[in-house]
């Protein structure tokens, strides 16, 4: 039955996440300026976790797990982006391992934090242009190439990388490999300097004749599919849960921006009356309510997408819809909040300007807004990649 309310247990769980997120928010500015991840052992947080009552496990009448995952992600990022920490456990590479690795491979590496290295200096949205190569030499793959923008790249204990085993095969030649940190020839020369999400360790990877065992090919399938993109699809499957989660993360930041703006408006004496007609609302309030509507719309897209996942229903199209929508929504919302508050919004005295910079990544990583729109349009028009790109 269609329902948009949370159960008492749902609320208790989310309240806990948000209380913890607020503690981490206190450290947000400090670690952003240091461009470092906060440590796990923030003293207050430790106390909080020790003091907090254990919330009962969700039951069959509570919201489905994927829905709660998205709401928890929103709650965490509502605290601040830098709350990421190790809370989320693995990196993107772990999702790829789960999607594409064999059972043995998952058992062997599942406990590691794994980054995902796809992007290269000359290849972003179109991964079929991957230049990084993997050549079979005896029982080893020899990896050569450069990867950039690797999220959690410094602290990851291993990386899932995309490399081509046959450049002439185009997309079909691309395979995923697992490379553990410390493997000779795998260097991490520096951390990227970014507009936002500065506490995140985004790294550059260099592979110079880096040798890994033959069994490190995820899925162990060395064949190059003749037709279109068999192997490639397996890799792309990763995104059906990660896209809505990325959307939820960005929306958490947007919600923080809206909450801050609402508080400031109210403090300045503006009443936010959802019943009032256009003729009676001050422009600042009217603008705020519009931003809130965009937020609400985007959150519901995301929840619908993860709800489908919980039902075991396909959500490929929806994952692009919610990611595309959140990507543009968070830009409009955070930039709009600063517009409403004026110079105050642009001051680094407050976190609002940081949230605007942080959430700008939402429309870029995990497939840009343009890529999502291509996927949606192809679905609507029943076009192949070749027909619409």
């Amino acid at each position: 039955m269609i329902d948009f309310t949370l159960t008492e247990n749902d609320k208790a769980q989310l309240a806990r996440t948000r209380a913890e997120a607020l503690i981490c928010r206190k450290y947000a500015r400090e670690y952003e300026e240091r461009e470092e991840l906060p440590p796990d052992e923030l003293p207050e947080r430790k106390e909080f976790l020790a003091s907090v009552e254990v919330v009962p496990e969700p039951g069959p009448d509570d919201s489905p797990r994927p829905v709660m995952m998205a709401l928890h992600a929103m709650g965490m990022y509502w605290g601040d982006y830098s709350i990421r920490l190790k809370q989320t456990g693995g990196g993107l590479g772990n999702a790829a391992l789960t999607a594409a690795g064999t059972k043995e491979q998952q058992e062997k590496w599942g406990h590691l934090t794994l980054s995902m290295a796809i992007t290269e200096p000359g290849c972003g949205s179109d991964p079929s242009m991957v230049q990084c190569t993997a050549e079979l030499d005896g029982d080893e793959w020899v990896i050569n190439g450069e990867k950039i923008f690797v999220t959690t790249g410094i602290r990851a204990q291993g990386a899932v990388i995309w490399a081509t085993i046959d450049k002439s095969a185009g997309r079909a030649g691309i395979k995923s490999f697992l490379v553990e940190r410390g493997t000779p020839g795998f260097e991490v020369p520096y951390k990227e300097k970014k507009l936002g999400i500065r506490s995140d360790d985004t790294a550059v990877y260099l592979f110079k004749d880096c040798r890994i065992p033959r069994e490190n090919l995820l899925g162990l399938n060395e064949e190059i599919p003749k037709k279109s993109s068999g192997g490639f699809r397996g890799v792309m499957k990763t995104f059906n849960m990660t896209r809505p989660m990325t959307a939820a993360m960005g929306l958490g930041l947007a919600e923080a921006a809206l909450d801050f703006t609402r508080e400031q408006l109210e403090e300045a004496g503006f009443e936010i009356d959802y019943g009032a007609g256009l003729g009676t609302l001050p422009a600042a309030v009217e603008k705020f309510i519009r931003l809130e509507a965009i937020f609400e719309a985007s959150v519901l897209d995301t929840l619908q997408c993860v709800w489908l996942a919980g039902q075991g229903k396909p959500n490929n199209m929806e994952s692009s819809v919610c990611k595309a929508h959140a990507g543009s929504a968070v830009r409009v919302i955070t930039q709009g909040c600063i517009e409403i508050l004026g110079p105050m919004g642009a001051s680094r005295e407050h976190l609002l300007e940081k949230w605007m910079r942080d959430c700008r990544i939402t429309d870029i990583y995990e497939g840009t807004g343009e890529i999502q729109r291509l996927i949606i349009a192809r679905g609507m028009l029943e076009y192949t990649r070749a027909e619409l790109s």
Partner: protein
Amino acid sequence: MISFGLSEEQEIVRDTLKEFADEAMRPIARDCDEEASIPQDFLDTVWELGLTSTQIPEEHGGGGESRSPVTNAILLEELGYGDASLAVAAMAPSAFANAIVDHGTEDQQKRLLPLFCTEKFHAASLAVAEPGAVFDALKPRTLAEPKGDGFVLSGVKSFVPLGDRASHFLVVAANGEGLDAFIVPREAGGLRISGPEKNLGLRGLTTVSLELERVEVPQADRLGGQAGCDVRNLLAGSRAALCAVMVGLSRGVVAECVPYAKDRVAFGEAIAKKQSIAFRLAEMHIETESMRWLTWKAASFVEKGLDAVKPAHLARSYAAEKCMWIADNGVQVFGGHGYIRDNPVEMWFRNARTLGVLEGMIGV
């Protein structure tokens, strides 16, 4: 528990109404618009579906199904996909009847609900909108002054659907402290009905204006009786209903644009293969989806008896803007053909602008 799942019954309603929209609405929509009238046949056919009587209690002659604003939102989307004018005409009596079911006193229910449980289409309408600039539904200029045990209504209402044949009107007025809704029979003294109005969109639908010149209404005809009722939530339900029609309209635009864009060739390829068009279609799809969830949320708040003012306002603010944007771009995708009345997009463009500024009319 958060869920986007339709009940089995809701799925049946959706599928039935989708078929009805394709077979009974879309084929006649253009003629209704051109002729500014809706055939009685259509109203009688729609009446047979029982959309109005189903949720009226059995004791008053109805189907006795529990009131479900969410189900109504789902079916209104399908009707809106069929045609906005016909959708509003089909559901205008429901808005009146459901207001009586939800807020009416026992006496009001007993007197009025049986009217909607007969075999022939029966019209009665909400009268909310007013002709003045920057209309605010929560601050109507129509006033209800207390007089003796009753009230005296003065003011002007516009966009009253099916006002040419409605037996009763539910008139929203300011009572000095807040809002009230009054049941006003067609033959009430001091009520002048003029029309049909000539409007930008929803041309098929006959709308009228009501001039209320000191219309006397007994306490018994104040909706909810002595206690009155929560008119804000009633208006929220109307907004959710209008949103549902806008979702359907938007979906119709997208469905029309996709085959056209694939078919229309310019500079050696289908225009759908150009990102400028393809991205616009993707955007239309995204917004249509969002509008639907916002609408469901507002309807679900009404259904659960929660304060629906905020979700309904957010849904309306969003849907009105995006539906207009979608219809506007629908015209653009069709280019010159979109400007010609042979194609439906120009009609949807006019309907989108009209729906987005209306209040009242229908409910969930």
